[in-house]
């Protein structure tokens, strides 16, 4: 039975001082359950990266199941760094595809404002090898900065081109009620912002965020019976790469994304040129570009030039990061992959509001953990009713 997304729930992303990790998670979960109208979930998959360090709280699956009134259900937490959301979605998708459950709730959350920047920086580095990478004092943005420098040198990319994806994200976030930064930034503002780790500038980096997003996966039959708009999940695939960044043969290509994308396109009988919208993981602009290159919507090294040229705007094909991307919607780590899927669902079911992409039928989400270490590609197709 082909799994479908029958409903989604999101909380506003931002510094949510009044909310805790679990209250955000519960609100997103209930919103997804209510919007799907297919009854109660039979299992829960919870995505989160850092709660053990940032909240000193683990065992989130059972905790959330209880808090949404479903103690007793199978409920498991899944972690793959910043790719946790896509990974949890993959687990939920697989279980429905296998016929084990009809309806599952996949929810992701991260609460970063409970800690200082320094503490979060330290926690984020658990995505890489502590003994030989964190040991030398690099931060996560530092790792991406080294890749940014190589990418720019190899492909002759200009500074305005590297900044363009950030400008695009902010432009699209203006109309996203869930976005952390609902305002434009100019190219000059990005280029004048200080370095956070040379050559990555502050306004090329996703912010620290609190937020939770959830999706309800169910069978096509159930969604039809419920008379709700839904999107078929044509595929959900996961790829990984050499764990230590310095051991990668090619540092300017995300082979984990390529692997997942090839498999997902094969499952879906689609090609990258069939995508009407694409949500990519622009934790840093270079990461977004590497995702676009590896997904195959651009030749290697060409996505910055295409972004600068306006190819990926809301009228472009594909339209990219239509609700702001990680940079402007925000990047609550464990929730990010599920915000992406929820945003693709909104576009494919005609519920994207002012940012609705005309005749959007096929959409992909690329979620990434580490520097292209664990990547997930999800392809959805809207069902018109």
């Amino acid at each position: 039975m082909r799994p479908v997304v029958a409903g989604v729930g999101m909380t506003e992303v931002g510094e949510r001082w009044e909310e805790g990790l679990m209250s955000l998670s519960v609100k997103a979960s209930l919103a997804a359950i209510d919007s799907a109208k297919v009854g109660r979930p039979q299992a829960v998959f919870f995505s989160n990266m850092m709660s053990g360090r940032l909240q000193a709280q683990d065992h989130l699956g059972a905790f959330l199941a209880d808090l949404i009134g479903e103690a007793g259900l199978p409920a498991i937490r899944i972690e793959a760094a910043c790719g946790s959301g896509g990974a949890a979605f993959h687990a939920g998708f697989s279980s429905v595809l296998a016929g084990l459950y009809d309806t599952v709730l996949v929810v992701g959350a991260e609460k970063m404002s409970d800690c200082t920047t320094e503490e979060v920086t330290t926690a984020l580095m658990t995505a890489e090898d502590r003994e030989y990478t964190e040991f030398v004092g690099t931060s996560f943005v530092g790792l991406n900065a080294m890749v940014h420098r190589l990418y720019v040198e190899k492909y002759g990319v200009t500074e305005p081109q590297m900044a363009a994806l950030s400008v695009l994200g902010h432009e699209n976030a203006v109309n996203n009620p869930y976005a952390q930064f609902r305002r434009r930034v100019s190219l000059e503002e990005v280029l004048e912002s200080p370095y956070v780790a040379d050559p990555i500038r502050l306004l090329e980096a996703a912010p620290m965020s609190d937020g939770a997003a959830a999706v309800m996966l169910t069978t096509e039959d159930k969604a039809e019976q419920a008379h709700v708009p839904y999107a078929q999940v044509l595929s959900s695939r996961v790829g990984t790469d050499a764990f230590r960044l310095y051991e990668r043969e090619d540092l300017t290509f995300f082979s984990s994304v390529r692997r997942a994308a090839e498999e997902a396109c094969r499952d879906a009988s689609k090609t990258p040129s069939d995508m009407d919208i694409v949500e990519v993981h622009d934790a840093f602009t270079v990461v977004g570009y590497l995702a676009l290159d590896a997904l195959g919507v651009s030749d290697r090294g060409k996505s910055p030039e295409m972004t600068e040229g306006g190819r990926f705007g809301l009228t472009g094909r594909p339209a990219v990061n239509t609700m702001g991307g990680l940079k402007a919607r925000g990047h609550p780590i464990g929730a990010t992959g599920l915000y992406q899927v929820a945003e693709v669902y909104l576009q494919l079911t005609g519920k994207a509001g002012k940012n609705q992409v005309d005749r959007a039928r096929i959409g992909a989400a690329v979620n990434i953990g580490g520097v292209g270490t664990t990547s997930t590609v999800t392809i959805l197709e809207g069902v018109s009713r």
Partner: protein
Amino acid sequence: MRESVPRAWREAEYRQRLVGSRCAKCSLVRYPPRIICPKCGSREHEEFQLPRVGRVLTYTVIRKGPVEFSGQEPYIVAMVELGENMRILSQLTDVSPEDVKTGMEVEAVLRKYREDSDDGVILYGIKFRPRLRRKAP
């Protein structure tokens, strides 16, 4: 996180002497040593001493590091190419950020990375500095 003494001790040789492994079948060098070769799958390896001279492949300036490095910023972290398909991540030392160039020759030196606390373990490792050239005779 408090640094565990045995944890630091069991990595010390690799970190301080640049000891890696070379696959007995396909000669792939990995650092730190591997149990199984990621390229050919062989489980036979010999100890391999990494070269101590290399070139800066790419680098960054860390302006906000992990908590353990608090107060040391800014400092330079680089990926150093020690040979074909043989790289290491390391700090650069004895050079200021504006003088670093990709492609510059660097050499290994043993340096302190950090102190865990007043009564905690002191962590040493290899850093790279610009290669010192002997004066022509």
